[in-house]
């Protein structure tokens, strides 16, 4: 398990968490590299299909990030995300996928530190959980 390098997909809203990730870079913070960011206009664009697809293709974890409640650039996109992700969590559990493998976090453009902390924490959690099983 020492060598397990998780494969993590991070969805970022371009207004907040993507900018937070930029800020983390600009501030030369250091984060675990086992993730790649996919940029969407809003966390509300994130279809549960994308997440299930990621898990089906071997993602060990998926991190969905958006603006803080009340701060959505598109009024209320993040609330829709929250509802979708909370329901998806229940379904994942039924599929035997630990709900900790999907995390939803609100990170504003000013929270570079939180972005890094969230990434490191999440990848740490995933490392503890171990690799997700391949599809048989």
């Amino acid at each position: 398990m020492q060598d397990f390098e998780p494969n993590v997909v991070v969805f970022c809203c371009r207004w907040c968490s993507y900018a937070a990730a930029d800020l983390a870079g600009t501030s030369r913070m250091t984060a675990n590299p086992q993730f790649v960011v996919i940029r969407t206009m809003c966390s509300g664009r994130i279809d549960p299909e994308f997440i299930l697809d990621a898990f089906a293709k071997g993602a060990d974890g998926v991190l969905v990030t958006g603006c803080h409640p009340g701060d959505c650039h598109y009024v209320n996109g993040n609330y829709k995300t929250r509802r979708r992700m909370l329901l998806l969590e229940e379904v994942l559990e039924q599929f035997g996928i630990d709900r900790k493998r999907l995390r939803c976090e609100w990170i504003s453009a000013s929270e570079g530190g939180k972005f890094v902390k969230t990434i490191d924490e999440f990848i740490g959690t995933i490392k503890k959980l171990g690799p997700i099983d391949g599809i048989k």
Partner: protein
Amino acid sequence: MGKPKFAFYWCASCGGCEEAVIDLNEKILDLTAAVDIVFWPVALDFKYADVRSMGKGEIDVSFINGAIRSSEQREMAELLSKKSKTVIAFGSCAHLGGIPGLANFWRRKDIFERVYESVPTVKNPEHILPKMESKVDGYKLNLPEFYDTVSALDQVIPVDYYLPGCPPAPELITDAIDAILKNKLPKKGSVLAPDKALCDTCPLADSKPDKLSIKEIKRPHEIKLDPEKCFLAQGVICLGPVTRSGCGECCINANMPCRGCMGPTKAAIDQGAKGISFIASILGVEDEENTSDEDVRDLIKQIVDPAGTFYRFSLPYSLLKRKR
């Protein structure tokens, strides 16, 4: 050229699809007149050996219903695949895995344990479970392997067309047979049903409010359903928006919401995921800014068995296919 040769076979399913063929009523006579049925175990006395003795591609069209759950079904599916020019996955189970596919929420050992040991009416002190090989009075007996995972037909053999529905509606079947006879089948891989979702043809579509919003989720038995009103507007989960039309709206006409047997629409990949997304989208959380995750979760918890609800017919066909 002689009459085209048809075969029908029944894998893991309830048998309703076979009934659906019979349900063609008098049209079945036209069918038998137009084609030669060379294999149909449920209705006519053929043996596996008859199929084995056929040449490659000798059957024109095989209609296979049911999911693949055992080695015997797999063997027969593979055999028919070899002997047929065209294979049609017939009905939800062959198309998506169907109701038998829900077994993928468990493991084989859990299923055996449940069925042969822990059901209250079962007494099995010696823990006898089905085995592929056993000896009785010195004779060796073989049973097919019961797979750990149920598959949709196209996960086992190549499938040319899909006739969806639980069971497929008679109109879809006759249209398909017409197309075969007239050589007007669409491009391979097609689902032989309309591309739009059920709302397109739903008789209750006019009663749908401008903006859908569900404040409390109800199950059909918990309220008196108004037969004139969109079920979603009544707070009852209806999978019409995520389900292909063409079924004839029988459930809606019987005052029951759509449960999704026709499978996802053309552009959707995973019916369950789409179900999750759209139900969550229209959950009416009031004053959402001041609502905690817990409160939202409470509302969501009103959905009993969400995975079962959204993947009722399509679990083996879904992205995740089964429980880990």
